[in-house]
């Protein structure tokens, strides 16, 4: 019990005292995971829409891939991205290994199937006739997709929450391709692992509270948005 209380107090102290390192870690975490979520949204939503609406050879294969990808272990993604970005890897010349950019790429790979899958299932829950109706109302292709996106916006919001929640919580990929370099690529999850290893349990606990606080605030904001919409 003492531990929890201590950790909580330390977390508050770190936040209130404006501990420079904690703030920089928290900010980098938000930046990396926020960016990854955004990119996965830009990739995953069109992918999900397309897979839900179109019929083509090999579609089942891709849908299966997306569904399997929703549970992709971060460690595996980290390993593969690392293999590509290593100096001797095919993309080694980019010099991206152990950079925040590499972390964004890995997290994007983790979140994109999730966003695509949830978007796809949201669209599939719409009546197939609705698509005909929208076309019949005179929608151009662009207007069509915009209306479909608007129609499944609650599903997309859920996808954003799930994607963000997943990448901000993952540690394996960030550790593998970011390297947990202090002041540079250290995010909340990797620093928690580090502090646990160092035996700084109360600091680790404090950092975990910061992580929970961030995750909860963001998810809460999105939930408010979602639920307000429901009642309208």
């Amino acid at each position: 019990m003492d531990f929890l209380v201590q950790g909580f107090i330390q977390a508050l102290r770190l936040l209130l005292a404006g501990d420079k390192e904690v703030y920089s870690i928290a900010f980098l975490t938000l930046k990396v995971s926020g960016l990854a979520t955004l990119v996965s949204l830009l990739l995953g939503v069109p992918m999900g829409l397309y897979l839900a609406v179109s019929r083509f050879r090999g579609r089942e294969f891709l849908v299966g891939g997306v569904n399997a990808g929703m549970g992709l272990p971060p460690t595996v993604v980290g390993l593969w991205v690392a293999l590509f970005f290593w100096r001797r890897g095919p993309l080694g010349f980019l010099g991206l290994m152990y950079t925040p950019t590499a972390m964004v790429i890995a997290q994007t790979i983790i979140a994109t199937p999730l966003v695509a899958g949830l978007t796809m299932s949201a669209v599939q829950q719409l009546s197939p006739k609705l698509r005909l109706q929208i076309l019949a109302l005179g929608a151009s292709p662009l207007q069509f997709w915009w209306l479909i996106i608007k129609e499944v916006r609650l599903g997309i919001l859920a996808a954003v929450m799930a994607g963000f929640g997943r990448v901000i919580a993952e540690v394996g990929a960030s550790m593998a391709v970011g390297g947990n370099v202090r002041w540079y690529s250290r995010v909340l999850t990797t620093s928690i692992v580090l502090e646990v290893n160092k035996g700084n349990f109360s600091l680790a606990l404090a950092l975990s509270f910061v992580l929970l606080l961030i995750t909860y605030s963001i998810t809460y904001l999105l939930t408010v948005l979602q639920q307000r919409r429901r009642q309208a």
Partner: protein
Amino acid sequence: MTSVLAVKNIVVKRGRRFRLQVDEFAVEPGEVVALIGPNGAGKSTLLTVLACLSLPDKGELFFLREKVSKGNALAVRRQLAVVFQEPLLLDSSVLENAALGLKLRGQKTGAKDRAYTWLQRFGVEHLATQNALTLSGGEAQRVSLARAFALEPKVLLLDEPFASIDVISRSTLIKEFKSVLSSTKTTAILVTHDFQEVLALASRVVILDQGRIRAQGTPRGIAAHEIWGGLAGAQIPPMPGS
């Protein structure tokens, strides 16, 4: 007279099977054509083709003598309106829904006023600010009809629009619909199972079976026909006043 919509030698396939094969069919201005026939006869398929929602595998579709192709399908669609069996409203207010088609067609100014007038016409203007997904089936279908009429379509295509509405509301709605139809002189194509609707609304009946047109004529003519009368399931009520 120039047909508003016409098809020539069209073939629609599902896989290898013929779904629809129509050599010639045309709709003249002011007509209300009913498409009837058993399940799977190809009525809805023909309607989708006529509405430019899917191009046929073979054959041609003409809108006011102009051949419809991929290039002008959108422009043609923007002259038509379709009402399906389900109301198919979107997750926004009733007024937004009713004005949606106009907005999509670029008629933004006055869209909401016009939509509101049509909501009034179908007696659902008091629901204007409500979310459309909260409406009952009957209310929603009225909004769907208002949305279609607001577009002032050259042809209004309807796919069993009254089938999901309970019997009591149905007859009232059909009456209102009929009066709107005749006052606006809207050309319409109506897919239906219900011969009562045909009698109430249609000026011509086309019978489809197994993807082909089997017969056409006036509603009473078809009903009286020794073979097709049975298919139409018609038990003709005595015509009021005749």
